[in-house]
């Protein structure tokens, strides 16, 4: 199965998002480059709204991801609660 990835800016908004994603996706790997954080995961990666809200202490709308998003790969399935990247093969 191929890898999907999610790249976010390395800033205070994105830090709790990266923490939440890593807690929810134990198979994911983080790599840091200047000003950015890349998360790679085999097959699929899920961002959960509740996990982010718990960490930041207030409600989070998953569409706020757009503000600090740099790049991604894979097919996207987005609902109010979850944002998932995946490949079919």
């Amino acid at each position, binding site marked *: 199965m*191929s*890898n*999907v*990835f999610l*790249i976010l*800016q390395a800033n205070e908004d994105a830090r709790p998002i990266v923490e939440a994603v890593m807690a929810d996706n134990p198979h994911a790997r983080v790599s840091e*480059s*200047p*000003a*950015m954080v890349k998360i790679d995961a085999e097959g699929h990666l899920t961002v959960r709204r509740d996990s982010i809200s718990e960490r930041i202490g207030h409600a989070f709308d998953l*569409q*706020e991801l*757009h*503000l*600090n*998003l*740099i*790049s*991604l*790969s*894979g*097919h*996207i*399935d*987005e*609902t*109010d609660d979850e944002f998932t990247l995946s*490949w*079919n*093969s």
Partner: protein
Amino acid sequence: MDMKAAPKHKMGLKERYAAMTRGLDWETSYQPMDKVYPFDKYEGIVIHDWDKWQDPFRLTMDAYWKYQAEKERKLYAIIDAYAQNNGHLNVTDARYINTVKLFLQGVTPLEYMAHRGFAHVGRALRGPGPRIACQMQALDELRHAQTQVHAMSNYNRYYNGLHDWRHMYERVWYLSVPKSFFEDAVSAGPFEFLVAVGFSFEYVLTNLLFVPFVSGAAYNGDMNTMTFGFSAQSDEARHMTLGLECIKFLLEQDPANVPIVQRWLDKWCWRGVRLLSLVAMMMDYMLPKRVMSWKEAWEMYFEEAGGALFKDLARYGIREPKCMQQVRLEKDHLSHQVWTTFYNYGAAAAFHTWIPDADEMDWLSQKYPESFDKYYRPRMEYWREQAALGNRYYNKTLPMLCQTCQIPMLFTEPGDPTKICYRETSYLGDKFHFCSDHCKEIFEYEPEKYIQAWLPVHQIYQGNCFEPGTDPTAPGFDPLAAVLQHYHLNFGRDNLDFEGSEDQRNFAAWKGAVTRNQVG
């Protein structure tokens, strides 16, 4: 009677998207639909159900404005802070600023062309889902052009070569490469444009410019480029998703679409690869501090990410683009061949060139163990030696250009880095030249289109690149000087080596002024 209002039902994301992107259109009655939308059938693409188009982000116009406004506020706060704090003096060294010049001259005008392209394509498609997606993307691209001009205008106050980028884009020889790329795309049909720009360029290739290069800008202390680059890329992530959606939509609508899409993928991946050779040189040679080599970035974002994508699309009968084999062979050579060409033509470029210093050459050896020491280091060391002896040679003749990608014939044969690759074909009695089999094949499929190419070298020889009143027969006529005048390129300020340039002197003087008080 119970007067209590029923609790308001809050729509979920998918419902909200359906409500705000569907049912907005109507079937025309005074005129047939095919006359209202005259361009969305002639390419042979068959669409049965436009409503199958879904934006996976389900972004609606109200949410779009909200998040874009937030991005702009963050962006301008950073740009202002950077300018107020003399941020330009924090870059690693003034050679770095030449990447900004090339960006403004060659990339920013493409953002504007993408804006025009998506505005046009949005009008041409009869389905409301893709029309809304194109509308947002047209606005995004305009925002990128504007924010880049604003951000880089700060450098124009201090450094040369940034003063007339729009004028240069229309005329300067190396800028005809990005210009002709986009003109090829916008003059194609609407679906080819979507596959060319929305998919091949945005999904497969822009990561290489906006992710590792922009991270490199941050690494070199350029907060300005980091912020406009990542702000643009946050939109690109959405565009990539739409590009992929567009491909899936076309492939799922009708099996007849598959071979058409495959041909566009072959063409546009190759066109994009050739265009990105400028970025290869920016990453390996023009960033004083390097994050990763071009080759490493290529492997991560093209081979790995693109490979996953094409593996996924195989279920539709799509295969990898034809050029994959050749680009695998070129990755060890591309940046070196392009940079040495610019070093050679440094008198005719609106940025400075240089030979990498000893540390930088060691870095290149390490990153390119198969090629750098064997083929490129000896040439560069020889040129450095010659320059030290006062024999810096600037090539002032004009190179042969590829009729399709418009890049000078500088690339070598696949598999033989010692031999320049030349291809040619005839059409209506004229001979045409190409840098590769792929560019030749693109020409041969649509020769009527590519024979019209505005090739800078041909135009110069025809006398179309001199200012009015220039007399090329006058004694002592200097054609290069006349062409540079036409480009609005100031000889001795904007071009030639970085060593000895006004940029170098000014940067050193201003840096010095940061830590000392002026007396008197």
